[in-house]
């Protein structure tokens, strides 16, 4: 049964072309009958399912090798072609060969001196630059093809024409003549071995004439198995169908030749044979119609079996399937740590880890065995030292089994809390798409993950599913735990900054907690800190009279390590021309001194995901991933606790503007409109100044668009002035938690210009977008300007234009994802085994150098300071602070 005795290692691979002799030598049967089985279902002798081609039914012995199904490798047969045909895969090379050699004497069309020169060159290339050999061969062919007279026999060379896929013509004075494959073959036969070498082929394994087939190999029946349907009807493989066609035409051709049929008929059949052979190799050859099944479905022939996503390579050789994996829907869990993943009990009971019994764990393991496969911390199998497996589903008395195990046994126990597993969400575009998590076994049926790991996985909870894999060896678990654990991936190599961090409510919560007006009673403060898992002392209250009160900043400070100093501008910063820094009246300048938040509000710039140079970034860089992880686990819970206690909602009446503001918005739009009609007037009178590089019409369009864009911006500005400070949407936009100011303006003021392909909407009827407008109307309303805000509702025409713009967005995303996916695939294929060596050179697998220093500066972006190896400013700041403070 064992194949292992036969396993050999591959030292090198050499590709060549099968010669007719070789094809006959490896063939076990010459196939002459186009049929497969007779009425009784017995394979026909010398038919396509001949017994000698290998066994396909179990219990049968192979007529060639005597083996049974599993052992019989299958054997090739062959078809003797009545007339030669060109192998379609070599058609182009055959063309080059014909062009480069003399039709009469078969020599390369080069003078002897040239031949000598190129022979020497070829020899040197072979030794020094073997990769360039084919380039030289190309040059030889190009040189030789230019010659119109043979330097050896003096014959004039005719011009050759190649018509895809397999036809060649020679241009004589009297007209063009088609070259028959047998003529081609005899010309190729005349090429000398030394000339063949100059063309870049090895004549030992690839003689040119072998590119024209005289014998066709028939693959073993195991390669093209026939299937028996339930109704008892046999259905043959596509390849068999194609071979049937080939044999049928081949036999007809043979008969006609023997009968001395007219040349015309023979040529027709010959061409048909060429067609069948061509489609047998590749049924998607350009220039010829694909061969079809009776049902009209194109046949899946040799090339189709290998090519593409569903082909042999990508689907069967690169496509791996694994055990010890699980997949289910994901849902959020803000309570578990970022390093953890919630695993449903049902999954934990199916996924196992092999654990070897030793004197330390034997008691626990015995308890697991007693629990068996159905009670959670249990076990599914025991592997005895002799390799036998005991299935724990069957023994009635598991207690006895548990007592029987001893040191050296291996138990496949259920997944339990703290086990390291790999967690993945497709598409796996970067290394953070697969991270190691620690298991947390939980009830219910979804994988649970902390919200802070959503950005690296690009996950949300609208039905996303994720995969989980359980490493089975100590080494793999250790490696995953050290290199791939979530906390080790917080800093992304994509840009110098943390890819994980606060999103949405975390940011709103942090902002609300840390702003000036937040003061808390002892009770509130204790409650919040308890939820965050803080167990130390409460700091002394900021305010003592009339009663003890704490500020939000005080609570947020508790999670910074002491001695931590940092300062930055927050997201709410108005970007004043001169920054007052610590005296900012908006509390937008964050100052952390000795681990205390002195000034400023915490928002997206401080704790946001994907924010370089943030508090979080600095914390991790200065204190390590353990501190960073702990901060996210605890402080972030405080932010959520606060937002939970306060509540954060958005309501329709919040998006209402006072009548005064509405008037102002309207006025702004009216003004823009009058400017536009002025523009249109000047255009119609022919006074409009043309902009450089545009036509008059384009100029008008751009100017109108500019005007409308300004109008919308102005409307937004007005709206912003009138919105209350307490507006939640405004809070979220300002802190960077969600949405932008523009979104808000769309809701309350004016949606603005809709566009398709970067222009105002112009499609629809002739000279107008909709029948509601006059032809040639250039006004804002007629070309997709939406006056209303979402709150005020859109009128039907506005709605229609809005849908047009929205549709373009959807189509764009769909197109972009497929395009960037393909680009990613190609980049990964090209770069997959490039690596950085210890000397910081970037090299390929063969040691060839690609970069002399990684990224020219040898800096790891994940460990760098915003792309630079060191951040001088920060260092100075720290030194000065330390000296001064």
């Amino acid at each position, binding site marked *: 049964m064992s194949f292992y005795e036969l396993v050999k290692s591959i030292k090198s691979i050499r590709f060549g072309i099968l010669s007719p002799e070789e094809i006959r030598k490896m063939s076990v049967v010459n196939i002459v009958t186009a049929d497969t089985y007779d009425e009784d279902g017995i394979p026909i002798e010398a038919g396509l399912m001949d017994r000698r081609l290998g066994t396909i039914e179990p219990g049968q012995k192979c007529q060639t090798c005597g083996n049974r199904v599993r052992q019989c490798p299958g054997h090739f047969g062959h078809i003797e072609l009545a007339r030669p045909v060109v192998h379609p895969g070599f058609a182009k090379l055959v063309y080059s060969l014909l062009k480069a050699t003399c039709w009469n004497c078969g020599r390369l069309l080069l003078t002897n001196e040239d031949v000598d020169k190129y022979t020497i060159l070829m020899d040197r290339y072979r030794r020094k630059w073997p990769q360039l050999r084919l380039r030289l061969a190309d040059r030889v062919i190009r040189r030789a093809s230019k010659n119109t007279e043979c330097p050896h026999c003096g014959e004039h060379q005719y011009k050759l024409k190649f018509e895809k896929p397999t036809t060649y013509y020679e241009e004589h004075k009297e007209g063009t003549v088609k070259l028959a494959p047998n003529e081609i073959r005899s010309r190729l036969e005349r090429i000398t071995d030394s000339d063949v070498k100059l063309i870049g082929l090895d004549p030992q394994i690839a003689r040119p004439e072998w590119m024209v087939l005289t014998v066709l190999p028939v693959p073993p029946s195991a390669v093209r198995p026939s299937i028996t349907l339930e109704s008892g009807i046999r259905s043959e493989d596509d390849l068999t169908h194609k071979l049937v066609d080939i044999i049928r035409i081949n036999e007809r051709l043979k008969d006609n030749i023997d009968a001395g049929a007219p040349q015309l008929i023979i040529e027709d059949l010959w061409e048909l044979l060429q067609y069948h052979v061509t489609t047998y190799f590749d049924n998607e050859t350009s220039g010829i119609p694909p061969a079809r099944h009776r049902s009209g479905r194109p046949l899946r022939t040799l090339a189709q079996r290998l090519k593409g996503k569903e082909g042999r390579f990508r689907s069967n050789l690169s496509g791996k399937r694994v055990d010890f994996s699980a997949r289910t829907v994901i849902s959020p869990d803000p309570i578990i740590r970022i390093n953890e993943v919630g695993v449903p009990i049902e999954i934990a009971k199916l996924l196992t880890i092999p654990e070897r019994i030793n004197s330390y764990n034997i008691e626990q393991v015995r308890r697991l065995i007693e629990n068996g496969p159905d009670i959670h911390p249990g076990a599914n199998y025991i592997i005895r030292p002799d390799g036998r497996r005991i299935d724990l589903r069957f023994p009635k008395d598991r207690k006895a089994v548990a007592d029987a195990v001893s040191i050296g046994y291996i138990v496949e126990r259920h997944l339990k809390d703290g086990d390291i597993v790999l967690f993945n969400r497709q598409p796996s575009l970067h290394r953070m798409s697969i991270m190691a998590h620690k298991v947390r076994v939980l009830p219910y049926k979804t994988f649970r993950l902390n919200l802070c790991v959503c950005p690296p996985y690009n996950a949300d909870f609208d039905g996303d599913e994720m995969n989980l894999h359980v490493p089975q060896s100590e080494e793999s678990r250790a490696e995953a735990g050290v290199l791939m654990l979530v906390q080790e991936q917080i800093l992304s190599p994509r840009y110098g900054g943390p890819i994980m961090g606060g999103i949405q409510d975390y940011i709103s919560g942090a902002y609300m907690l840390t702003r000036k007006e937040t003061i808390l009673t002892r009770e509130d403060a204790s409650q919040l800190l308890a939820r965050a898992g803080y167990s130390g002392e409460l700091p002394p209250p900021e305010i003592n009279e009339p009663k003890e009160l704490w500020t939000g900043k005080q609570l947020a400070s508790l999670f910074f390590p002491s001695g931590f100093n940092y300062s930055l501008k927050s997201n709410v910063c108005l970007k004043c021309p001169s920054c007052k820094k610590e005296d900012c009246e908006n509390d937008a300048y964050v100052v952390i001194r000795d681990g205390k938040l002195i000034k400023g509000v915490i928002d997206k710039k401080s704790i946001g995901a994907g924010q370089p140079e943030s508090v979080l970034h600095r914390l991790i860089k200065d204190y390590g991933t353990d501190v960073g992880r702990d901060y996210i686990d605890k402080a972030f819970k405080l932010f959520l606790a606060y937002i939970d206690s306060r509540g954060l909602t958005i309501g329709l009446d919040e998006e209402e503007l006072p009548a005064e503001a509405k008037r102002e918005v309207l006025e702004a739009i009216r003004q823009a409109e009058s400017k536009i009609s002025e523009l249109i007037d000047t255009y119609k009178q022919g006074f409009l100044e043309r902009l450089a590089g545009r036509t008059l019409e384009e100029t008008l369009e751009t100017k109108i668009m500019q005007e409308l864009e300004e109008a919308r911006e102005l409307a937004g500005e007005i709206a912003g002035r009138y919105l209350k400070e307490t507006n939640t949407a405004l809070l979220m936009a300002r802190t960077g938690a969600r949405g932008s100011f523009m979104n808000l303006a769309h809701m309350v003021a004016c949606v603005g210009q809709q566009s398709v392909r970067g222009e105002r909407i112009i499609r629809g009827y002739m000279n107008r977008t909709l029948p509601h407008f006059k032809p040639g109307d250039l006004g804002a309303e007629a070309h997709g300007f939406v006056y209303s805000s979402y709150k005020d509702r859109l009128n039907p025409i506005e709605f229609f234009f809005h849908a047009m713009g929205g549709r373009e967005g959807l189509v764009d995303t769909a197109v972009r994802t497929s395009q960037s996916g393909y680009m990613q695939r190609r980049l990964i294929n090209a770069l997959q085994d490039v690596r950085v060596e210890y000397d910081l050179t970037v090299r390929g697998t063969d040691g*060839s*150098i690609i970069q002399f220093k990684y990224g020219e500066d040898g800096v790891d972006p994940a460990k760098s300071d915003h792309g630079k190896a060191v951040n001088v400013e920060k260092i100075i700041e720290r030194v000065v602070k330390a000296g001064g403070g």
Partner: protein
Amino acid sequence: MGKFDLLDHELVPQFRIMAKEEIEQLRKSLGVRKEDLPWMLKSDPVSKAIGAKPGDVVEIVRKSPVAGRSVAYRYVVPG
């Protein structure tokens, strides 16, 4: 258009054919064969301008936005 020296163009970095000993030193320090260096064709405009021949190694000194000055090497091959 008049003739111009492409090496004078500001976007073209500095090229220099290395001496035998230098090549040997470079080879040793990187632990590679000459063929493992990135290649440059003899027909490359720069090869022609500086007269590099197959087997030569060319040193390129570039100004780099990230590293300030970066040095690279090319092994000249026929073609």
